[in-house]
């Protein structure tokens, strides 16, 4: 390569999102009453695709293989951060494209897309954060626009209620996180993750440090919608506009995991904190408890829902439990496999879960109704979209030939490999239960007779395109799982090896 990009260019995905947000603000300022939805959506789409493209390019070019450290090591760009940047950017692109149709009657178009872009920029920063300060700020940067996005349907009681709950729990959680950070700082005297790792050797303050660590864990648990910080999730996902639900349940969750992976492996490594500390801070055990409770509660609650969207909301909680296995099965030894599996799962999950919520968006667009019964016989009206939804459901349930199969089973394999076969077993039981409620959707669409007459007047291009893209990605991610796995493994290697 002749020309070497400057180091800050490693933050290109983040910068692109920030730029998109600013451009949208500019457009909005020039013509506040613009009716040109296409321009706004296209700008946002272009920005997200560019961000995704840049992430892929960097990954392929090996940019992150030697971590690029910026701003006095408070930001680090490595394979892992680029990997997640790709996840966020692609989910954002899907959401933005879908929103073109979904938000067609909305009056604050530019603000909507700008908020999405801002949230995305916060998310792309999160996996790169190498300082607890950056962790907190990037987390807030992604959260604050999200609150607004959830409540953006101002006249819709559901949306507002969802926004309120999300916000209140979020505020509480972020203050817990902040307090936790302050306690960790109290013991370690630094906010840089590698230096925090050394705090484990401080004598006498294990209790303070331990409380700090668990409170930080709580802050991340909020972001990932893990029990007991999940309470906002069912309502927020149900009440929010469906594309926003997709965004939150896929990208935002993945961001929470990304930051958690880095913080817990770099700042609170298992070797020093859990195994050799003066008094053990067994956060792995805490995560294991959270993982088991999260997947169980999420799946069991999802099994008996009446509305599809809320079922998906709970299933999203359940998937948080699966992804937590990545942290819960860390042993300080050969952790790359399971951690990488968890990352790969989050990527696949990004596509399949986004797709599923976008199908809900489509159904809401058609005013089909919210319950399972309302979906009865939908396949006779919209076979293509229903086929895509079937792909998402089966993939979420972990069935081949879809991407969710590979990632989920490798995740379980990772847990077994780490010696936590019981974690995999609990996951397995939950997974089987999830098959039940996912297949309820399939059953409603394909097997049941239509219960009511409704006409589908239009087939929105944006939604269809987004759903189709997500479905194709979900299918191709099984045969094409190799690159995902490869980069997930090297991303994990960047943290634990």
């Amino acid at each position, binding site marked *: 390569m002749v020309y070497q990009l400057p180091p800050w260019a490693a933050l290109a995905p983040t910068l692109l999102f920030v730029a998109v947000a600013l451009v949208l603000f500019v457009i909005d300022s020039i013509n506040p009453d613009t009716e040109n939805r296409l321009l706004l959506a296209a700008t946002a789409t272009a920005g997200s695709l560019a961000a995704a493209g840049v992430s892929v390019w960097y990954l392929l070019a090996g940019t992150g293989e030697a971590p690029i450290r910026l701003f006095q090591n408070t930001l680090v760009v490595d394979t892992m951060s680029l990997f997640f940047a790709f996840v966020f950017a692609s989910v954002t692109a899907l959401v933005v494209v879908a929103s073109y149709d979904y938000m067609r009657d909305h009056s604050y178009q530019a603000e909507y897309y700008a908020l999405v872009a801002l949230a995305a920029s916060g998310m792309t920063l999160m996996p790169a954060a190498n300082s607890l300060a950056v962790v907190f700020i990037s987390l807030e940067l992604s959260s604050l626009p999200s609150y607004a996005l959830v409540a953006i349907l101002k006249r819709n009681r559901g949306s507002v209620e969802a926004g309120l709950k999300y916000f209140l729990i979020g505020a509480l959680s972020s203050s817990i996180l902040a307090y936790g950070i302050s306690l960790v700082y109290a013991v370690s005297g630094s906010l840089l993750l590698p230096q925090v790792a050394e705090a484990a050797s401080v004598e006498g303050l294990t209790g303070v440090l331990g409380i700090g660590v668990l409170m930080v864990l709580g802050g991340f648990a909020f972001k990932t919608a893990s029990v007991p910080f999940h309470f906002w999730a069912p309502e927020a996902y149900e009440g929010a506009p469906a594309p926003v639900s997709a965004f939150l349940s896929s990208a935002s969750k993945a961001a929470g995991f990304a930051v958690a992976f880095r913080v817990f492996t770099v700042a609170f490594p298992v070797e020093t904190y859990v195994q050799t500390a003066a008094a053990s801070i067994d956060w792995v055990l805490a995560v294991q408890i959270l993982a088991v409770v999260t997947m169980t509660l999420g799946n069991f609650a999802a099994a008996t829902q009446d509305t599809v969207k809320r079922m998906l909301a709970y299933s999203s909680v359940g998937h948080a439990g699966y992804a937590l296995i990545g942290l819960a099965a860390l042993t300080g030894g050969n952790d*790359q496999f399971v951690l990488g599996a968890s990352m790969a799962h989050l990527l696949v999950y990004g596509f399949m879960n986004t797709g599923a919520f976008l199908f809900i968006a489509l159904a809401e667009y058609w005013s089909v109704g919210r319950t399972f019964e309302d979906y009865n016989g939908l396949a006779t009206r919209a076979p293509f979209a229903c086929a895509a939804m079937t792909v998402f459901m089966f993939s979420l349930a972990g069935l081949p030939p879809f991407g969710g199969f*590979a990632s989920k089973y490798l995740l379980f394999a990772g847990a077994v490999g780490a010696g936590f076969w019981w974690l995999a077993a609990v996951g397995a039981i939950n997974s089987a239960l999830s*098959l039940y409620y996912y297949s309820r959707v399939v059953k409603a669409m394909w097997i049941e007779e239509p219960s009511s007459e409704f006409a589908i007047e239009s087939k929105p291009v944006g939604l269809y395109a987004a759903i189709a893209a997500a479905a194709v990605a979900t299918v191709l991610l099984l045969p094409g799982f*190799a690159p995902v796995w490869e980069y997930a493994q090297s991303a994990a290697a960047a943290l634990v090896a």
Partner: protein
Amino acid sequence: MWIEALIAVTLASAGAVFLSPNKVAGKIAFVLSLLPVGGSLWMYSTYEASGNALLEGSTLAFETNADWIVAGPYSLNWHVGLDGISMPLIALTTVLTSLALLASWTPIDERQSQFYGLMLFLEASLLGVFSALDFFVWFVFWEMVLVPMYVLIGVWGGPRRKYAAIKMFVYTNIASLALFIGFTALVFGLGDAVNTFDMAAVAQALRAGELGALGPIGAGTLKLVAFVAMFVGFAVKVPVVPFHTWLPDAHVEAPTPVSIMLAGVLLKMGTYALLRFNFTMLPDIAQQNAQLIALFAVISVIYGAMLALAQTDLKRIVAYSSVSSMGYVILGLVAYTVYGMGGATFQMVAHGLISGLMFMAVGVIYNTTHTRMVSDMSGLASKMPITVAVFVAGAFGYMGLPLMAGFAAELFIFLGAFGAFEGSVLFTAAAMFGIVIVAGYLLLAMQRTLFGPFEIETDYEVSPAAFHDVAPLVVLILLVVLLGVDPNIFFEMIQNAVDPLAPAAGGGV
């Protein structure tokens, strides 16, 4: 590349049929399904392999081994190939699918293109299951089977189809998860000895005793636990009593062609996997617990047969008798003799053909009479003679009439099992009593439905079945007789493939 081509052609056919109009989907699907039939027969005719695919010193037919996912410490390979155990099952799958498609023309009268597309998709998955030699690839296909099955039962099934479909779906999925955990635990327990999920590598390392501890679990316990997990996982699929209750429901509700596939091929996945995994990889555990496993087998045989005796629905009778017949396979496997294990494999093929035949015949009767209850009809023989003749022939095949495939298979199993391990004489003798009960319930059902004065409770005109309904029946019965008269068509290659497994046991017959 032949296996890939076989699967790809089947998948492409599935896609083509999906897009074809409903009216001609059945015909297109049948014609397209002849391609894999031809392919598998060609493969059979050029088949050249020796030894067991998972053990040292084997050469496989049509083998491909390519990287699929290589990253981190473990690699997953696209590894497929055939040995004497899988080749017959591949042939069975293609042939039975074709015939099942033909048998679908009459009963499937809505959403045909979807139905036939899914059937072909199912076939592709099954071909994958029987040819894959890397665990992960195998598992992909193994689970892939569930998707079309669920929809096939759920959409085109009987009145309780939704219940049956979801039960089958969830139950067998739990089983898959159990076996997945069991197997991966073994792979990871092997530590650095094996860094792949290749079944052959894992099997050889396990047999070489390289299993170490996994976390807090010692090697001995790990072996046992993994064995149990995998056994339970496969036992659901087989199904072995007491994991069988999904099967009758699924059978009764499934449309005829799906029942044919279910009984004919899908159940064999379980026994095939038992042979490939439990009995090949952990022979010491299997042999230490031979009596217990044999007890499961005997209970399956006798209890399944007793249940069949109590049924009043023709399809349920055949469904439960499948439970009974698959018990013999378990007995043969645990014998660890060439006759026993070979007979078990042969029984997979034989039972596949015979149970397919029985379900098909019941289906033809149902198409005409619109009832399957034994009490609702009698004397069908005078109205549909050819169907009844084939039904009778199939039923006698099921009872193990000599010179039909079922007898050969059961005989091999009995020969292999008798005296193979401590107490095997009694277990074998007990299992053999199944041949009396099976005769009892089949003869009873036939006497009531097929013979006696003609009567029927439904208002449908009973007339002889159409040619395309009868033709697959006749083809099947001919195949059953052919295999019964000359089992060597498959048995020779089967023996060759199971022989390396048998000496591990030492004695036996």
